[in-house]
């Protein structure tokens, strides 16, 4: 299936593949293209003009001195980049700390749910187990927006993982306190059938 966003890319190349010859479906795809354009219009994009490597060989026009404004410009972008990196690392730390709040909330809910096995406590426990697990699976994705060669994402990632592991531990602890972990001898022998008896004996009082 070809989605709208994919069209936007083709659209830039002006190469729209049309697979269907059916007029109705064609119109539909055109419709989708229009839609895609709409999306394109709202999207931010930039054409890089700063790269003037190709124009270096050409002489500057008369009266134009290249030095100062060029420098100013580059320092400005560097400042901008620094600010962005700062912002990114700040954000990354914020994201890394987010599970803590979650942890607190989960803890509160667990306390509220009590230690008896019923629908509510089971639900909470399993969500407490599942949430960290899914979060840990998506560690890369969560920190992707803040990926930057200037930003050190390792520390926030570690914190994030640690907090999620903490959340999972909490879940396991809850599971145990609910008595759902097979940690007792009773969990292993409760359905053990009686041992076979070697001898057989019958009889009783005489029948009358």
């Amino acid at each position: 299936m070809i989605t709208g966003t994919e069209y936007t890319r083709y659209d830039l190349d002006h190469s729209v593949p049309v697979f269907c010859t059916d007029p109705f479906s064609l119109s539909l795809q055109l419709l989708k293209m229009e839609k895609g354009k709409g999306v394109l219009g709202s999207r931010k994009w930039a054409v890089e003009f700063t790269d003037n490597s190709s124009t270096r060989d050409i002489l500057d026009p008369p009266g134009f001195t290249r030095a100062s404004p060029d420098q100013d410009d580059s320092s400005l972008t560097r400042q901008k980049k620094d600010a962005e990196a700062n912002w990114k690392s700040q954000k990354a730390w914020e994201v890394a700390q987010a599970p803590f709040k979650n942890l607190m909330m989960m803890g509160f809910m667990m306390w509220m749910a009590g230690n008896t096995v019923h629908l509510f406590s089971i639900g909470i426990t399993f969500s407490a187990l599942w949430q960290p697990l899914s979060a840990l699976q998506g560690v890369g994705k969560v920190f992707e927006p803040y990926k930057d060669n200037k930003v050190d994402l390792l520390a926030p990632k570690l914190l994030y993982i640690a907090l999620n592991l903490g959340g999972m531990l909490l879940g396991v602890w809850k599971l145990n306190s609910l008595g759902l972990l097979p940690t007792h001898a009773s969990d292993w022998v409760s359905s053990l059938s009686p041992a076979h008896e070697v001898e057989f004996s019958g009889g009783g009082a005489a029948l009358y």
Partner: protein
Amino acid sequence: MAMAIKLSLILLLCLSSLLAPSFSLFEDQVGLMDWHQRYIGKVKHAVFHTQKAGRKRVLVSTEENVIASLDLRRGEIFWRHVLGPNDVVDKIDIALGKYVITLSSEGSILRAWNLPDGQMVWESFLSGSKYSKALLTVPSNLKVDLDSPIFVYSGGCLHAISSIDGEYLWKKDFAIESSVDVHQLILSGGSDVVHAVGVTDSSQFDTYEIDVKNGGLLKHTSASFPGGVYGEILPVSGDRFVVLDASRSVVLLITVNNGATHLQQTHVSDLIHGSSENTVILPSKLSGIFSLRTDSCIVFVKVTDEGKLNVMEKVDKTVVVSDALALSEGEQAFALVQQGDSKIELSVRLVHDMSSNHLKETVKMDHERGFVHKIFINNYVRTDRSHGFRALIVMEDHSLLLLQQGEIVWTRDDGLASVIDVTTSELPVEKIGVSVAKVEHSLFEWLKGHMLKLKGTLMLATPDEVAAIQQIRLQSSQKNKMTRDHNGFRKLLILLTRAGKLYALHTGNGRVVWSTLLQSLRTTSQQQCAGLKLRQWQVPHHHALDNNPSVLVVGRCGLSLTSPSALSIVDAYTGKELQNLGPAEHSTVQVITLPFRDSTEQQLHLLIDADKRAHLYPTTPEAASIFQRESENVYWYSVESEAGILRGYGVKKTHSSEYSFEARNLWSIVFPAESEKIIATVTRKPNEVVHTQAKVIADEDVMYKYISKNMVFVATVSPKASGPIGSATPDESVLVVYLIDTVTGRILHRMTHLGSQGPVHAVLSENWVVYHYFNLRAHRYEMSVIEIYDQSRAENKDVLKLIVGKHNLTTPVSSYSRPEVTTKSQSYFFTHSVKAISVSSTAKGITSKHLLIGTIGDQVLALDKRFVDPRRSLNPTQAEKEEGLLPLTDALPIIPQSYVTHAFKVEGLRGIETIPAKLESTSLVFAYGVDLFYTRIAPSKTYDSLTEDFNYALLLLTIVALVIAIFVTWVLSERKDLQDKWR
């Protein structure tokens, strides 16, 4: 705060689970899964009550001590009273046309019951000085000072009792003067004299004439005959009597004339030419005639006015003779029944005209009913003023039939009132390939039924429809099918009755599927046979599915323990006697079902005879080789209650023949005769299934049950306290209970209850025993529980070891390893006295258990096993409460809703049998006594199935509606999508 809320919630839950009865029925659920059948037992005596107006009835007394009034038209019970097991009914009669008079307990209790409704009017206790025969005479129209006296001879005294209020009028004690044994009370019509005829020291014949007004002795005559007498004196006419002499070869005719007694001897051989062994005078009272039965025939002898004996007729010895019935014109009639092949011949004769039959009818008779045992006749006046007769006959299988105009008007299978043993059989598997039409029909019916039910649930049904719904529920064809069902509710109950008849009852509605009078158990004139045990013989599972299941019936021909046994194998589907192994040459005192089967799925049985030899059945080489292989581990034990000894035996290596084995005595436990007497022994049910050996208690701790099938519970009392309650003081009576291993004779546990006595009723299941006894100090019944745990396994608590399987829990156990055991016990008061205790049993043993207690009121009470848990304490901890442990109370609660018999009574309750259904949650319960009752119980509720009245139609309707809704919304959303796209 939250904790407090939680606590209160838990408490509320506990309370509600406590208060809510474990199960109870709604009124409209009665009869859905239970049935109740009322019986009376073998009729001993019958009195007809057939006035012109009102309902015609017959009053009967039976061998089960039942007095009943039956509808003569249909045989239904108008009313019925079941007297106690020791209150044997001696005589029954009607007085004043409105009271039924019964004499019971060897003539010591005289009662009057109101004829229409059976209410007791009065009761008199008659005291006598010695044991004697009980005689009752109710004069039809005798008036003494406005009273109509009844004459009762019992305990050596003649009593006159007012029939109006049961007051004593007078009493005449015969025992004071001489040791006369009165045989007959005769009241000649019109005179004010009672004649008492008796024998003193079996050599002197006495007649007394007693004034009916005051009991004064008017005349006493006697005559002695040195030969002695045999049996009873029979009156022939007002002043003539006949009796046999002690050698049973001479008939004595006694004539009392003007104060003188004449004796006249006639040899039986003169009357009957040919053999005359075992002569008896039949007790049928016919005026001027008596009947004599010998081994070969029955003769009717007329006593002429001159005192001569004339043989009138000779008939076959199987003929049954009724009493004489007075017809209106002063003439008498009596009935004879002649047994033919699958038919009986009933002939009625007039006493003055013996030569011809007044009436002769031939009635077809199911030969499974055996011979006619008794006949009672009654007459009615036809429209043409001639006499019609109806006859009530009692058959060999204890059934009761009414014959009229050559037809059987009704029958009652009263043999079912005396069930000895019960077993079950599965029904055949349903064959595939049922015709389409039938399926469609049933589908339509099914849908219709469910639509009706749906209407009922939605409160839309009219009263008629509500009635129809109830009808459908009660007569669901599903439950009465003759095939096996998925849940295992449909089974055959196979019952062995005292008459030696086997009945198969369908559990769906209790109808008799087949019945067989076992030829091997038929009582003949030479020997008296009776059934002992009924066991499953062949239960086809895998190898022999084509075979029908069969049962083994073990009986005994004779009265002593050494009498030869009778064995027969009966097909459980058809009732055919497949094999008649009897009479076997050995006796049988014990029947042991071995846990081995041969290749045809026949269960191996050991029959122990009186000489302690074991006989193996089936007698096939295969069975013998199986037994030889296993014989080292086969043991048995005997309980000798009189001697107070328990003995254990093993099989001796040397055997006398291929199928019989000598026993070697391994151990004996001798109870001291001066202090202990065995009153009860109980073992586990051999087919009981235990799910687990571990018991998880509070805080996830584990206790290991001591589960052994070789355990017997023995209760002994001090000999002084073995009588009824109250016969011993608390200091004299001691109840001792034992748990004994029957392989090694080891006493696992012994406990003494001071000041307590029997009767003890107990039930042993899994690792616990519950027993019921009387506490003399507290003046109350008590129930105690003992739970026994295996201490040698208690160390298995390391989780890691359990995970990797390093434990000794699955290794086979031997009693010789003498495992350490520990017990817990507790006692509670219990309000009722008990007739029987049983426990629910389920297919896998997972479901919690209910004790089924047969109460003195002939009902079955279900008591949750949790109430008799020795770990109950006054203040259970939080963990224990969560475990479901109840706080300790001094008495066991009786919750009225937990009577499984609800509104019914199982009169004369003797036993409660539980059978596991295939559905784990459910146990089938069959209670028997004079009545039969069947139901099914679910001790932990039916957690594994939907209830009967679950509305499938509603479910189906909901699903269909949901599917339609999904479709509609899908189409709608598609359409909306398209519109959005064109916008």
